[in-house]
């Protein structure tokens, strides 16, 4: 039997992380298009919008995590709560570091849209993928442990 409230909270948390994961892939798609077609204006504008969405999703993840942790605390499974909180917070820190470096590369790209700068920006964004997957896995593991305890 699924705990519906917790289920929705997990869904929202996964959704924010999923947003980051899809958004960096969209950024890469824009970069590839830009690199192939060398069209200006709209491409840069679109890359900017997608790139700026990543920190927005990360901040939303922080808020959703608080709600999940609050709900888990009520269930009284301390180990599961702490493991999840630690895994997500670690992931969020990694995301922020990658974002910081990517932001520097992004500004270099705006100044000089060379192939090299495009690729360096893309390579930095690609680092977001494993971090997102690791956080999604942590959520899955928590669900499995709670299910085994009959709490989910």
């Amino acid at each position, binding site marked *: 039997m*699924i705990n519906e409230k917790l289920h929705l909270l997990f*869904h929202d948390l*996964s*959704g924010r*992380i*999923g*947003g980051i*994961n*899809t*958004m960096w*892939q*969209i950024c890469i*798609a*824009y970069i590839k*298009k830009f690199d192939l077609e060398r069209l200006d204006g*709209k*491409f840069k504008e*679109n890359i900017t*919008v*997608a790139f700026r*969405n990543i920190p*927005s*999703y990360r901040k939303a993840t922080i808020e959703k995590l608080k709600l999940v942790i609050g709900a888990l605390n009520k269930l009284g499974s301390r180990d599961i709560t702490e493991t999840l909180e630690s895994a997500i917070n670690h992931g969020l820190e990694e995301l922020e570091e990658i974002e910081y470096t990517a932001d520097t590369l992004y500004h270099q790209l705006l100044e000089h849209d060379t192939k090299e700068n495009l690729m360096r920006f893309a390579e930095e964004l690609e680092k977001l993928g494993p971090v*997102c997957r690791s956080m*999604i896995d942590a959520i899955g593991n928590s669900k499995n442990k709670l299910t085994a305890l009959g709490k989910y």
Partner: protein
Amino acid sequence: MVLKLLILEDDIDLLNSLKGIYDLYDYKVFATPRGDEALAIIEKERPHVVLCDLHLEDSPITGIEVLKQTSQKYPDIKVIVATGYGMEDSIVKVCNQYKPFMFMIKPIDFNELTDALQVLAKDLK
């Protein structure tokens, strides 16, 4: 023939970003966060593909209802289901009954989605 794609997604940032990138693929892209609007677009525009989020906040009609009505009224339209809920019994039951063209568990793998759309677009030509 240009591929007509309808994106039904309640995450507005994701919706706008997906529309933005697929516009560049020269698809004719429609986008809405609401199930009722999606059904109206399907009725009027007859898209070739509907990317359908099943769980829609603030929508009077769910993505499940859109999948159901589309598969019943317009079986030629390819519905790609995207859900963050995973393969739960209720979702499996809906998919077995209405048989979407493709099922994606969120987070959406953008490359997988794009590859599927490109194959469908090629088939139209």
